[in-house]
């Protein structure tokens, strides 16, 4: 198949949009599914939706991460009827903290850090952000910080699970021809993509 390079740029943009829309849709679905799952502990959430945010980060960069995770938080809360409730504030606060940390770590250590590393840092950021928001908005009591160690431990475990899932997803996505160009740009100069 042949196409001019101008067409290819357009095609790449359309692909990016389509994939980001799919990522958002999947993230919203996971957000809802996780809400339906019974939880053994009241505040224990794996944060499965973050798998898609991580995938977006590693395939399309920092901007894509913010698009996917913020859209997911708003659409997911709208669907579950928790938009602008205290729970939503916790979710948004955690999301903003997590995204900032994930963006920063990805920018700082772009070629060295993997999905699991970014995921764990993001999860730690998420629980810290949630506790800060909980402290500011809900209960202004210092003993709330006693929960932090338990939250951090849970974040470490769920961060590893999500990062692992994102790594599997990225590996299988990169096998698809639509990601050929992306894969080439990641691999650098030695594996240049040819328009033939």
């Amino acid at each position, binding site marked *: 198949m042949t196409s001019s390079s101008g067409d290819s740029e357009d095609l790449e943009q359309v692909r990016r949009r389509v994939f980001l829309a799919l990522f958002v849709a999947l993230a919203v679905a996971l957000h809802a599914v996780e809400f339906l799952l019974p939880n053994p502990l009241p505040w224990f959430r794996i944060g499965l939706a973050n798998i898609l945010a991580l995938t977006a980060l590693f395939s399309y960069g920092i901007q894509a991460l913010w698009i996917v995770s913020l859209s997911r938080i708003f659409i997911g809360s709208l669907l579950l009827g928790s938009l602008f409730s205290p729970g939503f504030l916790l979710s948004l606060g955690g999301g903003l903290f997590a995204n900032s940390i994930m963006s920063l770590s990805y920018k700082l*250590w772009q070629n*060295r*850090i*993997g*999905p*699991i*590393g970014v995921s*764990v*840092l993001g999860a*730690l950021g998420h629980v810290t952000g949630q506790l800060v928001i909980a402290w500011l908005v809900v209960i202004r*009591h*210092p*003993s709330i910080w*006693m929960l*932090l*160690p338990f939250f*951090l*431990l849970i974040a*470490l475990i769920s961060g*590893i699970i999500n*990062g*692992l899932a994102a*790594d599997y997803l990225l590996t299988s996505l990169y096998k698809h021809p639509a990601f050929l160009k992306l894969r080439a740009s990641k691999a650098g100069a030695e594996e240049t993509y040819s328009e033939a």
Partner: protein
Amino acid sequence: MKIFSWTKHLTSFDRRLLVIVAVLVALSFSILLRQSSGARVVVSIDDRTVFVAPLAKDQKVELVGPLGKTVLQVENGAARIISSPCPHKVCMRMGDARHSGDLLACVPNKIVVSIEGDSIGEDAEYDFIQR
């Protein structure tokens, strides 16, 4: 049986990062355990502080509020209300208070028992204040 190995999905940087994070989590737990018990029990009746004592000293104290005598017991680093003239006995069912920030309250008798300070550091130094 083959053990599922997830570590092969880690970059060497991730590996070091995970070790550091695990150490930090362990550290946060140790800080929590060290700071968990309070230093002194503070009693106020009708918003006036009437009694301060260390949590480490076992004793029974009779507190007199508008309704009558409420008995506070301090034992093994925990404070609890063991008898009270109030109608619903909510304060007695609040159980033990041992951590800094914990509260026991008997609203009808206007008594509030709170745990303050930290069992390590200067807070633990003095042993009794009666006001």
